């Protein structure tokens, strides 16, 4: 993916209109929710974030914030994150069961659930990886 490609992707009018619609909807819903709870300052902050998100594609299109190097860093960060998720998944899945069965600790539901969620992410990763490998 080249810089020119990314620039073209962002600057496409139809994508930009879709982006504005989605951001406005989410921002409006969040602001309404916060105002309903009388969190005025938080609602104003939400408005600021929404305005920033609306301006972002324009900034990206004119200044090209993302390039090939950013894309590589993005991928590497995801890869290292996945290693930690794998380790947390194995530890979180096995640790609570073993400790509970050995009578060391009562079953820690949160740790077990975290393990299950992490392993779910790992299985999703394995599925994506298999699809990429067989379509390569």
């Amino acid at each position: 993916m080249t810089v020119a490609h990314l620039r073209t992707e962002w600057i496409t009018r139809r994508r930009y209109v879709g982006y504005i619609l989605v951001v406005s909807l989410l921002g409006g819903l969040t602001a309404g929710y916060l105002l309903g709870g009388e969190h005025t300052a938080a609602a104003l902050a939400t408005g600021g974030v929404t305005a920033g998100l609306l301006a972002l594609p324009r900034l990206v299109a004119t200044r090209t914030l993302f390039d090939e190097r950013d894309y590589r860093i993005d991928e590497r960060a995801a890869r290292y994150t996945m290693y930690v998720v794998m380790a947390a998944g194995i530890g979180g899945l096995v640790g609570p069961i073993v400790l509970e069965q050995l009578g060391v600790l009562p079953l820690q539901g949160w740790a077990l659930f975290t393990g299950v969620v992490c392993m779910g992410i790992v299985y999703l990763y394995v599925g994506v990886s298999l699809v990429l490998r067989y379509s390569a």
Partner: protein
Amino acid sequence: MNWPQTEAGLRRRRWRIAIYGSFAVGVVGLLVGVNVGLDLAGALLYLGGVAVGSACCLYACYWDDLTLSDERFAAIERRASHYTVSLIAYVGLAIFPLLFVLEAAGEFTFGPALEAALYAASALFVLWSVVYVVLRIRA
């Protein structure tokens, strides 16, 4: 998948079968153990399978002269990680704000499982952000 029928290709195939087989035995063992009420045996089988698979992987990578992975494999691994994290981000961004609004409207209540999933996803992206910043500073 086509495997090269050279000596190195066959050895590579045997190692991969051993590694993936160990992980598969561990996962199946855990599922069976939990379902028949032998939680400890299942968990230990899982731990054993993962440990054997990891040990095989480390041995093949560092002590054997065999190359299990190559540039193409590493690129697929990176892309798969990126797509997985992106998928979770997009699904989370699409679903959780909606659930917050529904909860505020009294139409929905966050259960402990969903709360834990929210915390797990948040922790995942905090971790990703830290790794990203570290890589960005080092680059």
